């Protein structure tokens, strides 16, 4: 294994950038989405609507379109990792939010990272 060539500088830089850009997302820090909402960065749900026909496949496609990451939640709210949108499979509510811990109940979330 020691004979392996070194990784390209491009790939190593990408790795560094990834580790740094993903290092900060918690409920105490304001997100650009929350800042843009003019509420001083407080974590909040910014939109909510009913989507009774939502499926995991459709949700995943919507999430992929925003270069997001799907998470499945086995239990009730407050467990999504970061800003994005969440689907509550009991109430069929689709919510958009600015921070972690804002999904409402079991279902799935899409974490949409900042464009940086």
């Amino acid at each position, binding site marked *: 294994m020691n004979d392996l060539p*070194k990784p390209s500088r491009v790939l190593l830089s*990408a790795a560094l950038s990834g580790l740094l850009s993903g290092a900060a997302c918690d409920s105490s820090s304001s997100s650009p989405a929350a800042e843009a909402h003019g509420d001083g960065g407080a974590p909040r749900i910014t939109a909510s609507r009913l989507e009774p026909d939502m499926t995991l496949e459709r949700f995943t496609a919507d999430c992929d379109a925003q270069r997001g990451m799907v998470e499945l939640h086995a239990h009730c709210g407050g467990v999504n990792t970061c800003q994005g949108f969440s689907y509550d499979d009991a109430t069929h509510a689709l919510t958009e939010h600015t921070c972690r811990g804002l999904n409402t109940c079991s279902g799935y979330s899409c974490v949409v990272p900042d464009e940086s």
Partner: protein
Amino acid sequence: MTRSTPPAWLESFQARFSRVLRAPLDRSGGALRDRRDDYSSEACADVAAGEPALERARLAVYNRQYWFRLLDALQRELPLTHRLLGSWAFNGHALGFLEQRAPAQRDLATAADGFAAFLEARAAGEGAAARALAQAARIDEAFRSVLRAAEPPPFVPTAEALAQLESARLVRSPAVRFIEEDRPLLELRAAPYEGERPLPLPPALPAPRSWVLCSTAESYRLVPLEPAQARFFELLAAHTVGHALSLLERTQASEPALAGHVQRWLAEGMRLNLWSGISR
């Protein structure tokens, strides 16, 4: 505080009673039955019943309860494996395991420690159903590990650590496990189940699926991984970051957006707290 030596009569009584409790149940008749005729006459004499048959019947209550409580604990700890095998077959494996390794801890859940590895060893190389059983046992064990692990504080890499990144390893958090499934076993694990009959083995997926399982403050989170992302995380678990990147470049040389993928995968990994630190 020192503990005095128990009197000899008490030690002797506990030894007799323990042998009764742990006497293996008989599965030969299609039901789990105690072997009360095998209890020692000394143990029976400990029961103030006055009638031999009643003495053995009273001891058998404890004998059966010991095993049934343990079987119930193992079924709860490995719910997917229980669904896949059904209660009768699951209990057969569980009895074989428990006869080899009697629990010695107060926490009943720890009675299942080592059971997944025991099942994997039994299932080795025996067709699709056996492979599914081994995979199910690994998945159940992943849940057990993650749900019992303390979530470490978020990993914040220092500038010094990042300067040495190429020759360092990312240390996987103890609250994280990677899961691979050839069949939709995670759905089966969450399916309603009242016990007894095995649930049908679901058909194989068009391609294996990979997931990361992470503990949260109150529960857990399952996140699907792209195949290449899963492969990259496997490489990171086995190699330094530099070697993992080199191997990835070698196998994904034709992927023009590889750098972008690596950046996104690592950012996602950081958000999920997949790593607890960097080691040299």
